[in-house]
């Protein structure tokens, strides 16, 4: 009777989990579908043909036999090395609190909690924050922040995976310093990245959001607003000791009507133009862009005039305009905005990024593939370690394949896989190498 009851419970649990699992997968976004179609058409256009069946199968047979021999030899060596390289289990000590059953962290005073891990990582919860150490093992750690603010300093490691569950968001991190908060009442998520890279997944329209050093993300689910801003240098202390107050809970979103001012991070390396011009008082286009209000930006340009905008808008607004124009398939306007950015702010970090975006704008123009390739080459030559290197290399691979054939594209594909084995174009790169 008990056995029957257990079987029924397990069966019900299986049904519940299956339903939850199926529903957790969301449909592909239009951006994902567009990107996939681009890659597919590029592959199809290259018109590759397979080897004759007999030759191919002979090669497959020989490869399998050889691989089996090599694999048997290598496996034992690899397994020994893997065992030797396995990281030690993470251990931690707690200052200012204790751990309850289930991993919940309880504060003993009113100064917050500090958790110190044996490999150097640190976690600091502000007073009143409810956090939980769900899993801490040799693979890494899974931490929940149910509400409040927490700061992390994660020691870089290839063998450990750190996952931070914050409300409905998941932050995937390798090695970085950041502060994250979740306010369940306002349904507001906030992440301020001081150093490194993180990827935020959750209920946001753009899917995963990758953030780089100095960026500040605020997502408000109630108003469906997603805003990414850049912090000014020195705005945040680098220390991650438990802060005495929830200073980062206040979003640093640009107020409406604000324009980019010298001294902001994005202007730190900007040289003053030879003929200083007063920036026109535009709406905060970066905010409009983040909310997906591309048409409003373009309407503003119509109202102000293209020439005036290009000659007087700030660097940040020119960039937002370029993005809005690209999204609305107006490559000429995007190109003009990016060229203005390069001409007026030649020393700005955005000026380098503009090289990559010029390539994207050219690609969306009929017959612009050759020019796009030229822009990508320029970007890759100048922006070593830039934020779009992976994308530029991937696009270069696709265009080279399309324009010059797979033989020319193969070295680029190999380079891409070596540098970005899990990048967006890894599948296309592998396919390109395989087909050859």
């Amino acid at each position, binding site marked *: 009777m008990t056995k029957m009851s257990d079987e029924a419970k397990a069966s019900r649990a299986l049904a519940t989990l*299956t339903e939850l699992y199926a529903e957790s997968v969301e449909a592909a976004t239009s951006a994902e579908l567009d990107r*996939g179609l681009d890659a*597919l058409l590029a592959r*199809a*256009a290259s018109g590759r043909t397979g080897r004759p069946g007999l030759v191919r199968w002979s090669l497959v047979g020989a490869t399998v036999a050889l691989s089996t021999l090599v694999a048997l030899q290598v496996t034992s060596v690899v397994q020994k090395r893997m065992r030797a390289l396995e990281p030690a289990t993470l251990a931690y000590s707690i200052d200012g609190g204790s751990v309850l059953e289930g991993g919940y962290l309880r504060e003993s005073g009113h100064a917050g909690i500090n958790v110190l891990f044996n490999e150097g990582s640190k976690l600091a919860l502000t007073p009143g924050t409810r956090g939980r150490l769900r899993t801490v093992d040799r693979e890494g750690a899974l931490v929940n922040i149910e509400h409040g603010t927490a700061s992390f300093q994660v020691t870089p490691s290839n063998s450990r995976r750190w996952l931070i569950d914050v409300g409905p968001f998941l932050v995937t991190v390798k090695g970085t310093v950041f502060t994250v908060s979740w306010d369940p009442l306002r349904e507001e998520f906030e992440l301020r990245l001081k150093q490194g890279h993180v990827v935020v997944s959750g209920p946001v329209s753009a899917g995963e959001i990758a953030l780089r050093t100095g960026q500040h993300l605020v997502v408000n689910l109630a108003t469906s607003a997603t805003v990414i801003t850049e912090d000014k240098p020195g705005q945040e202390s680098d220390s991650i000791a438990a802060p005495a107050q929830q200073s980062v809970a206040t979003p640093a979103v640009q107020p409406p009507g604000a324009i980019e001012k010298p001294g902001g991070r994005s202007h730190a390396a900007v040289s003053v133009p030879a003929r200083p011009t007063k920036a026109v008082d535009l709406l905060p286009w970066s905010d409009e862009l983040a909310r997906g209000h591309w048409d409003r930006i373009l309407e503003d340009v119509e109202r102000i005039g293209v020439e005036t905008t290009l000659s007087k808008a700030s660097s940040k607004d020119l960039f937002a305009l370029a993005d809005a124009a690209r999204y609305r398939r107006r490559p000429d306007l995007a190109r003009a905005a990016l060229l203005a950015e390069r001409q007026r702010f030649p020393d700005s970090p955005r000026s380098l990024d503009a090289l990559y975006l010029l390539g994207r704008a050219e690609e969306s123009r009929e017959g612009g593939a050759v020019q796009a390739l030229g822009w990508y080459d320029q970007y890759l030559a100048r922006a070593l370690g830039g934020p779009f290197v992976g994308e530029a290399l991937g696009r270069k691979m696709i265009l080279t394949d399309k324009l010059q054939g797979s033989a020319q594209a193969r070295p680029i594909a190999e380079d891409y896989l070596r540098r970005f084995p899990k990048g967006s174009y890894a599948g296309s790169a592998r396919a390109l190498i395989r087909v050859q």
Partner: protein
Amino acid sequence: MVTQHPHAPLSLVVTQDRRAATDGDVARGMMMGDEWAIAETWRRFAPMVLRMAKRILGSQSEAEDVGQEVFYRVFRKAKLLREPDSLRSFVYACAMRSLKTELRRRKLRAWLHFDKPEVLACLGSRTLDVESRDLLRRFHGLLERLNARDRLVFVLRRMESMTVEEVAASMEISESTVKRSMTHASNRLSHWIAADPGLAGLLDGERWGQ
């Protein structure tokens, strides 16, 4: 003199509204190598294939890779399609073959310790709380333990709501094999759920109010 093109039948698809074209018209367009037909095939079937791949693989990036493989295979093999009207089944069959290959390759990689299994990225729904996501990660771990065929059958039958006949046709196996695989997968998963202390709360019905 009459020239025969057995794999490139005459088609009226060019003059039709492409969005209104039948699957057969689209398939015939692909046989002729028309770019619009490739794009239309992607538009019609990619959402379904990508969603299914995400459910089966539990990984966004791998699902995208497999999606590319599936549609490139469809494009290359379109000329072998004897019945253009059965394009949907053809796409499903290609998807099944690619997914099965990917699952087997993943098992091999795991066995060789070359790669760690990717963490399930079951995200995007604001209705999922932390506890639910943790449960899903555990469940994904159990699905990873099934063999490729059982896993495919289970996902198609229970998550894609396909009939036994449809599963059998897509996977090119008999209906009795589908039923056997389904029973095997369900029994094993139920057994593993019962043995997983992390899912004990679920079994006790505390969380789900059962």
